[in-house]
C-alpha cells in the first residue's frame, strides 16, 4: 500500500518534470520576467545605492510573487483540456497525492529559477551579504506556499481567464509577502529573523494538507 502511493507520486512528478524540461519556456519565462521587473525599479525610481538597498527586500518579494503566479493556470489546464486529468481522477490512486506532486513540480520549475534570479538581483540592488541567507530561506518557503495557493486559484478558475486566478490568489498572499520582506529587512538591520521563517514554515506545514485537499475539491467541481 505504502509503495503504491510513493510510486504514484514519483510517476506524476517525473512525468510533469519531463514535460516541463522539454519546453524550455516554462522555466526560463519566470526567470526573465523576474529580472525585468527587478531592473525596472532602479530605472523608474532612483539608482541611488542606499535607497535601493532599503527597497530591495520588498522589490524582490513582489517580483517573486508575480513571477511565481505568472504561469500558474497551466498547472491543471492542459491536463484538463486533453483529458489526462479525468483519467487521473477516475483511477483509484489518491488525488491528494496527484495535486501535491503537481504543486511540487510547479515549484521546482518556477520557484527554483526565481531563487537563482533573486541571488543575481540581490547584487543589482546592493543587498548586503548577510541578508542573502534569510532571503533564500524565506523564498524557498514562500514560493512553495504561493504555488499551493496558486494551485487552488488555478483549480477554481479552470477554463477561465488567467487574470481571474491572480485576483483570487493575490489577496491571500499578503502574509507571505509581509513575513518574507520582514525576514530580509530585519537581517539587514542585524536583527533576529528566525521567527519570521518559523511562521512561514508553520503556514506551509498547515497549507500542504489543507490547501491540497481543498484543491482536490475545487477540481472535482469541474466534473459534475
Amino acid at each position, binding site marked *: 500500500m505504502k509503495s503504491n502511493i510513493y510510486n504514484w507520486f514519483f510517476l506524476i512528478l517525473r512525468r510533469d518534470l519531463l514535460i516541463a524540461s522539454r519546453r524550455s519556456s516554462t522555466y526560463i519565462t519566470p526567470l526573465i520576467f523576474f529580472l525585468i521587473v527587478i531592473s525596472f525599479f532602479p530605472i523608474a525610481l532612483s539608482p541611488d545605492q542606499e535607497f535601493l538597498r532599503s527597497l530591495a527586500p520588498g522589490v524582490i518579494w513582489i517580483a517573486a510573487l508575480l513571477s511565481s503566479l505568472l504561469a500558474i493556470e497551466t498547472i491543471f489546464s492542459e491536463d484538463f483540456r486533453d483529458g489526462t486529468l479525468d483519467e487521473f481522477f477516475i483511477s483509484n490512486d489518491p488525488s491528494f497525492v496527484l495535486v501535491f506532486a503537481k504543486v511540487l513540480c510547479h515549484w521546482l520549475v518556477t520557484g527554483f529559477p526565481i531563487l537563482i534570479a533573486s541571488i543575481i538581483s540581490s547584487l543589482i540592488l546592493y543587498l548586503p551579504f548577510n541578508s542573502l541567507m534569510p532571503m533564500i530561506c524565506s523564498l524557498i518557503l514562500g514560493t512553495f506556499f504561493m504555488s499551493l495557493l496558486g494551485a*487552488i486559484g488555478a483549480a*477554481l*478558475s479552470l477554463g*477561465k*481567464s488567467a487574470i*481571474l486566478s491572480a*485576483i*483570487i490568489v*493575490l*489577496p*491571500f498572499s*499578503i*502574509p507571505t509577502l*509581509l*513575513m518574507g520582506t*520582514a525576514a530580509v*529587512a*530585519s537581517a539587514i538591520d542585524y536583527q533576529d529573523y528566525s521567527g519570521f521563517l518559523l*511562521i512561514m514554515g508553520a*503556514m506551509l506545514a*498547515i497549507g500542504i494538507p*489543507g*490547501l491540497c485537499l*481543498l484543491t482536490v*475539491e*475545487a477540481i472535482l*467541481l469541474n466534473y*459534475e
Partner: protein
Amino acid sequence: MNKMWNYIKDWFIEMGSPPLFFKWSSKVLPWLIFTTIIIFALGLTWGLFYSPTDYKQGDVYRIIYIHVPSAILGQSIFMFMAVCGFITMVWRVKISGMLLKAAAPIGASFTLLALLTGSIWGKPTWGTWWVWDARLTSTLILFFIYAAIIGLHSSIDDKSKADRAISILSIVGIAIIPIIKKSVDWWQTLHQPSTFSLTSAPSMTPDMYQPLLVCVLGFYLMFALLLTMNLRAEVIVREKNKSWVSKQYLSEDK
C-alpha cells in the same frame, strides 16, 4: 429539552427547502422591516443628537455610530459566510450556498462603508485620508477578499457550482484572515511605531457606548433584512423553472 432540539432541527431542515423558506420569509419580512427601522432610527437619533459631545474631537466623533458597526459587520459577515461555506461543502445544502452568495455583496458593502467613513473621520482628526495603520490595512485586504469571492462567483455560469467554488474560497479566507491580521500587526510594529492610535480616546462613557450598542444591533438587523431580501431574489431566480414558483407567482401574469 429533547423536544425543543427536535423542533429546532426540523426548522433548519424545513428552511433548507426553497418553497418553505419563501413562504416563511414572506411572513417574517414585514416584521423584520418594522423592527429594523425602529432600532436603526432609535440608535442613530440617540447617537447623533442626544449623546454627549466628545471633549477632544467635538461632534466629529459621531461618525463612530456608522463606522464601528459597519466594521464589525464586515468581519462577522465573513465568519457567517465561512460557516455557510462549510455547510455547503459538507452537507451540500442548496440554500446555504445561496446564503453565501447573497451575503457576499452585503459584507463587501459594509467593509467599504467602514473604510469610507474611516477616512472621512481620519481627515479632521488625523489630518490625512489614509494611514497605513494595521487595522486599516487588514480591513482593506478583507475588502479585496470579498471582491475576489464576488468576482469568482460571477465568472462561473453554473450557479450551484459557483456556490461551491466560493465556499472553498471562503474557507481558505477564514483560515488566513487571522494570519493576515496578526502579520499586519507585526509589520506595523517592525517598520514604524504607529503614528496614530485608533484607541487614543479615553474609554467611552456609558452615554456614548449605549447608543453605539443599539447601532450595532440595528446594523445586524439591517444585515438580516438585506440578506433575506437578497436570498428571496436569489431563490426566485434560480427556481424560476420549478412548478411552485410558476404556480404561486407567475400564473397571474399569463
